[in-house]
């Protein structure tokens, strides 16, 4: 593997194929990750939309519901939080994360249709690099926006400790990662964004609705409660609540929430890794 052995003119500037992990995994993954971020901040409308829409959502929905829930015996529903706005705050953050994850994975379908993905697939990068770069890119964007939304904590009546904030940030990061990876698994085999929209409405939005973001698990009963307990996002939302309202009793213990959320991350990441590994007799893209 020596450099510049052959005197053939074709070898001028020829690169030795390095087979180290850094050249086949970390550098390409970093490059794909960076691309996600660059693309995001170059599309200003995306930046505005993703911050502004959850804020609007939170204020409008939260204010509207707070009246309704209070008249129906508010305090118990909001599990101790006096205002529904406070209760809904973690849910709103998870919504930002979900939206960003969805949007960035929609770009996967776009990449496929535009041919960009084709050139990535035809390059010698390890398939893990594609997953890692793309999922971490989307997750970073989602997490940053979730973190930015934490500045509204004072408005939401959050009284927490620095450690609580760190824990909340961890919850946001893990949830960002798992939702992006989930989006990756769904988007990978698709070739139209319309089909992806259908899945968003069918799977991802209900996942959020039934995660304790809008109403607590304790407030649900029967089959709904059962489904909420099965929903891995429930534990992410609850984990975020642990961080933001450390003094309050949440549905599950912080340790249990962390464990399930981390497990969810691992499972969906393994899933997205598995979907890209296939190399078949069918057209790749």
């Amino acid at each position, binding site marked *: *593997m*020596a450099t510049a*052995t*052959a005197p*053939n*003119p*074709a*070898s*001028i*500037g*020829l*690169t030795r*194929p*390095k*087979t180290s992990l850094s*050249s*086949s995994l970390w*550098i*390409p993954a*970093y*490059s*794909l990750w960076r*691309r996600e971020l*660059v*693309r995001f901040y*170059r*599309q200003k409308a995306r930046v505005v939309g993703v911050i502004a829409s959850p804020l609007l959502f939170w204020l409008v929905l939260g204010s509207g519901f707070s009246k309704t829930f209070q008249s129906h015996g508010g305090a118990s529903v909001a599990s101790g939080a006096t205002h529904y706005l406070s209760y809904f705050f973690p849910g709103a953050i998870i919504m930002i994360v979900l939206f960003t994850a969805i949007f960035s994975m929609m770009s996967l379908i776009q990449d496929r249709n*535009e*041919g*960009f993905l*084709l*050139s*990535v*697939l*035809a*390059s*010698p*990068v390890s398939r893990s690099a594609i997953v890692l770069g793309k999922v971490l890119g989307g997750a970073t964007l989602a997490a940053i926006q979730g973190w930015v939304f934490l500045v509204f904590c004072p408005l939401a009546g959050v009284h927490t400790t620095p450690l609580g904030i760190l824990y909340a940030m961890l919850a946001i990061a893990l949830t960002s990662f798992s939702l992006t990876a989930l989006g990756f698994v769904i988007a990978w085999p698709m070739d139209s964004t319309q089909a992806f929209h259908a899945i968003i409405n069918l799977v991802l939005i209900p996942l959020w609705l039934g995660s304790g973001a809008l109403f607590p698990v304790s407030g649900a009963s029967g089959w709904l409660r059962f489904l909420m307990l099965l929903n891995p996002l429930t534990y992410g939302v609850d984990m975020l609540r642990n961080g933001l309202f450390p003094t309050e009793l949440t549905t599950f213990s912080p340790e249990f929430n962390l464990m399930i959320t981390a497990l969810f991350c691992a499972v969906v990441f393994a899933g997205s890794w598995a979907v890209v590994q296939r*190399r*078949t*007799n*069918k*057209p*790749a*893209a």
Partner: protein
Amino acid sequence: MATTQQLDRSPQTTPKNKPAGQFAPHAPIELDRLSHDYGTRLALDGLSFDVRPAEIFGLLGPNGSGKTTLFRILSTLMVPTGGHARLAGFDVAIEPNRVRLQTGIVFQATSLDVKLTVGENLMHQGHLYGLSGSHLKARSKEVLERVGLTDRKHDMVETLSGGQKRRVELAKGLIHSPSVLLLDEPTTGLDPGARIDLWNYLRILRDEQGVTVLVTTHLMEEAEHCDRLAILSAGKLVALGSPSELKSQIGGDIVQFETASADAATTLGARIADRFGVVPVVVDNAVRVEREQGHRFLTEVVEAFPGEIVSVSVSKPSLEDVFIQHTGHRFWLDQGEEKQ
């Protein structure tokens, strides 16, 4: 782990004195009974041929002839269902990453990220091929100079014209100094000036860098630019050779008699065959005959069958005539009829 793979490579190819690096005495592209079927449809049917080092090789065929399938296989995006394809001695199905390092690919659809600058696209591509740091910067500068876009380095790709984008694609394909360059219908959507530019770049690559270039095309006039051509029809290789060789195989001139209808053409064809002892090809409402001294033959036929012929023409054989000669039907009618 990959360092040892060069030693135990495919036993079929028997290099005597293998030099270091990739300049092994392999044909840049070798196809060995390569077949591919999509379930029911056979897209490639036992293709075997070699592409020689530092030539511009054309894959000519109408839509549905199998050239896209072959391109997908060569670019390692799809594993063939039968036979072998080797690039620089590496089997595409067994060692795709070795193949990928040797190959630069320019897809038909744009593979650029339009939200990134020209320079960023090249850096990204370099990263995918394991390049980084100052070496990548130097390569990026070099390929941009080669395609004449140094001044557009910091421009967003979406601001470039179609021809410029194609040049960036080319630069992108060359960033890792591949020994083989694959281009899928590279002149699609380019104006005549940009087409000429592109062909000039490809010749420079061939002559100065010794790069082997494989181009797919469905355009006869494009195929004329190639050193050698493989003509595909319905997944089969129907002819192989340089454009002039292929045309000279036809021998004389192409004489064409057009009649009022397809039936009339069939009748006329049979009668010409009877009377002159030639083998005419009937294509739609025309009868084509390949013949030395076409103009003389033409007068004889017109005199023998007055009133049946609507118009006549004599021409030197074109690549389309080569295609008709080998398949018995017109280039464009090929699609949709057979395996497609």
